[in-house]
């Protein structure tokens, strides 16, 4: 694995005047905020407010959408991710992602985990790979449940297990940041709880950014909360308020934030 030289900043990701367009339509406007290392940052807001778009801009997943483009800066330890010399492939290895619906590959559990290291040019013995797979599964609190059936298809697991498999797959390539796009929205409450516990554990080693519709979840797990809202006039999402979670939920400075977190709209 390559070792990246880190600028010793407090922040893993900073955006400066970020605007995201889909063709001519501006989906997100003028977002400037900083995401602290080894913390969980929640992005909340009603549907269509651009929070997922913002999340996906952090590892350039928006590049995959034809016509999408990002203006302004997204800094990863001071380096602009949208610099023409930066390859999105390298960005995504460093900033991993977990999606809304569990999407394990139709391969064995073992191969699901091994896929990431293999495509990134991993060279090592079978024993080392076994160890790597085990470490990733232990890290995602899934090892005990699957250690006897590593050769079974990832699709044979339950929804919650599949999502933890996806988390294990993401941490197998040793990223620094993990982006989670509504990771619990298709899971039952017990599986959700397990994922939340897992996130709190992962916080020690990874920086986590999570998009969620579930306000209690944001309040329970996150350290910082960013509230987004769609501007009624140009339908572009904008950042309304960003602060430590307890402040956003208990004493928000913007009236719209207060209305949203207290459930009066959205």
């Amino acid at each position, binding site marked *: 694995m390559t070792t990246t030289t880190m600028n010793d900043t407090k922040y893993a990701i900073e955006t400066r005047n970020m605007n995201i367009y889909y063709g001519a339509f501006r989906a997100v406007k003028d977002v400037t905020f900083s995401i602290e290392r080894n913390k969980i940052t929640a992005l909340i807001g009603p549907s269509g407010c651009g929070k997922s778009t913002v999340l996906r801009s952090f590892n350039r997943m928006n590049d995959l959408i034809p016509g999408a483009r990002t203006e302004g800066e997204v800094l990863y330890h001071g380096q602009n991710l949208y610099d023409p010399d930066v390859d999105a492939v390298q960005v995504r290895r460093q900033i991993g992602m977990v999606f809304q619906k569990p999407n394990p590959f139709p391969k064995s559990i073992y191969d699901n985990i091994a896929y990431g290291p293999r*495509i990134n040019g991993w060279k090592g013995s079978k024993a080392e790979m076994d160890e790597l797979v085990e470490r990733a599964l232990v890290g995602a609190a899934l090892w005990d449940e699957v250690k006897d059936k590593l050769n079974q298809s990832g*699709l044979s697991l339950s929804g919650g297990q599949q999502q933890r498999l996806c988390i294990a797959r993401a941490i197998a390539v040793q990223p620094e940041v993990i982006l989670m796009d509504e990771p619990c929205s298709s899971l039952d409450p017990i599986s959700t709880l397990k994922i939340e516990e897992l996130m709190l554990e992962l916080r020690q080693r990874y920086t986590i950014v999570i998009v969620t519709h579930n306000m209690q979840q944001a309040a329970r797990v996150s350290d910082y909360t960013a509230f987004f809202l769609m501007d009624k006039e140009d339908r572009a999402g904008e950042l309304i308020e960003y602060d430590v979670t307890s402040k956003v939920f208990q004493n928000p400075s913007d009236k719209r934030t207060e209305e949203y977190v207290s459930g009066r709209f959205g």
Partner: protein
Amino acid sequence: MSSESLRPESRSVGRLPEGEAVRQNVSGRQRRGKVWEGILLASTVFGIIILLMLAYNIVNDAFGGIGVQYAVEEEELTDGRPLDQLSQAELVAILETNLRSRVLQNLKRERPLAERSREELIDIINDEIIKPEVVAVYTLNEFLFNRPAIEAELRESHPRAELIFKSWLSWDFIVNPMSSKPVEAGIRTAILGTVFLLLLTMLISFPLGVGAAIYLEEYKSDKPFDERVPAGRWTNNAIQRVAGLIEANIYNLSGVPSIIYGILGLAIFVRALEQFTSGAIFGYADPTTANGRTIMSAALTMSLLVLPVVIISSQEAIRAVPSSLRQASYGLGATKWQTVWKIVLPNALPGILTGTILSISRAIGETAPLIVIGASTFIVTDPDSLFSKFTVLPLQIYNWTSRPQEEFRAIAAAAIIILLVLLLSLNAVAIWLRNYLRSKRVST
């Protein structure tokens, strides 16, 4: 139904709605459904009837009775003993007494009779002395259900002929080469030609078609050249335009009549590329094929013909791979090619293979383009290289059905059965392959 029962005040709570009006309404709606069900069933039955008629027609022609007449009866030659029980010396004696001296001398000059095997001698006796001749052909239906009438008819026209059952579809028919005598004619050359042609077509159209499908589905919107310089921008633009044009016209291409492809193949592969398709530039110099009318030309033409369908079905299979899998792969830092090669293709493969085999198997029945590019209709040598002359089953069938003699109609029907068996087994392979690959991928 009157709108009455849907008004708020007529709502019934705690019991099912009843009454004559309600009953009529429900049974009326159900009846309409039944009528449609009947119509749908009828169209299915119609299709099955047509298929059964087709099968009946073919079987009726491929099996049946023939009237055979012998120049000399076997019993007369052998005093009532079956021919194959005679010893070698007795067979030689029969030949010596019954053959004309000139024929006998010719045979002896080739190889003395005493040195020949018994089977060989029996063949010669059959061919030269007994000389069976088919004087009448009857369909299976006539043979089974109208026997007295056709026997009477046969006695009338050929008093010495006898009526026997004949299956035109036989092992001999499959392994014999082409012949101008229908009784001896076989379709080995045509089967080999068809199989050879299909394999080659598959080999050409599969990589081309799947490649094009991958490009159109996964790469089309990519900009491979540097957008910051004008030349790069211009090239990207050109590539995208061409790809867009092709994609828009694939469906049109798949609808072009096959004979047009035949004409195209004649102009390009047979004529313009003659040096290549005749094998001349590879030093393959067969005087009988010193032109481009070879299996190679035919396979290239057939590939043009099936390519649009192969592309369309592969595109559909690739599109059916959930985009969440692609995203997961990209999210781990995979490049586009890694994602295509390791995630998209393995998951699309069952669909690609099924679609491809099904579309190529349709080429099995194509005749028109092959006639245009000059496939042989009468050929006795097996195709043995890419640059051989060849014939295929449908062409042979077409050729036989256009002959006046009834025997040829019968062997055409037998050849149709072989063609259908080939087609069905190819499709069965496609289905088996799909199920096998699916079960392998999503096993739990």
